[in-house]
């Protein structure tokens, strides 16, 4: 690899970093939204379609 090592490993490293960051960010965002929805549900705030029929 010689003098190209920095450029090759640099490209692999940056690609891995961005790929990992964007995947983790999307996954973490989903987890946070799921928790928020669960908290709302626990507080009794539900979508109309998710409410039991006799509650309406």
């Amino acid at each position, binding site marked *: 690899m010689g003098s190209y090592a920095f450029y090759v490993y640099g490209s692999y490293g940056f690609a891995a970093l961005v790929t990992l*960051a964007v995947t983790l960010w*999307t996954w973490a965002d989903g987890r946070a939204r799921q928790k928020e929805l669960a908290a709302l549900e626990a507080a009794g705030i*539900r979508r109309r379609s998710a409410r039991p029929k006799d509650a309406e």
Partner: protein
Amino acid sequence: MMCYTIMSISAIGTLVWRHPLADVAAKAAAPLGAAFTLLALVTGSLWGKPMWGTWWVWDARLTSVFILFLMYLGLIALNRAMDEPSKAARVTAILILVGFVNIPIIKFSVDWWNTLHQSASVLRLDGPAIDPEFLRPLLVMAIAFTLLFFTLHLMAMRNEIWRRRIASQRRMAARMANREE
């Protein structure tokens, strides 16, 4: 470029059919497009230094891809700057469609202008000009990153739908609380 094209199709869906999922798709794709474009710019620069002897030149291909990156950032900022979701969706959709003019410029910039960046070497009428030893891993990675994009896009769309559901449930809870007072 594929991401921006998907956003442009979504923008047509927002403006013509006013389908809420079209706006969800465009909004979810923008950060992914920005990340993938940044990746292309940085790794391209890392390739350019040993091959061209420079990290960066303001030639047509590199500049038009940099503009694409700025477009993604601008679209994200514009969408977040507006309070009313339906207005934000329409304004963002218009800007997405205006920005689509940059996509053919990126593709054909190397043919239209004299650039340091080499001319098209994969999608050519007379077949790829790259040695199979380079072409095969290039195509494998292109497929891999395309699949990664679609997976992340679907995940981000689901997150955006949840975000909107949360906002709607909060509004509903606030209305119910006001009625009880």
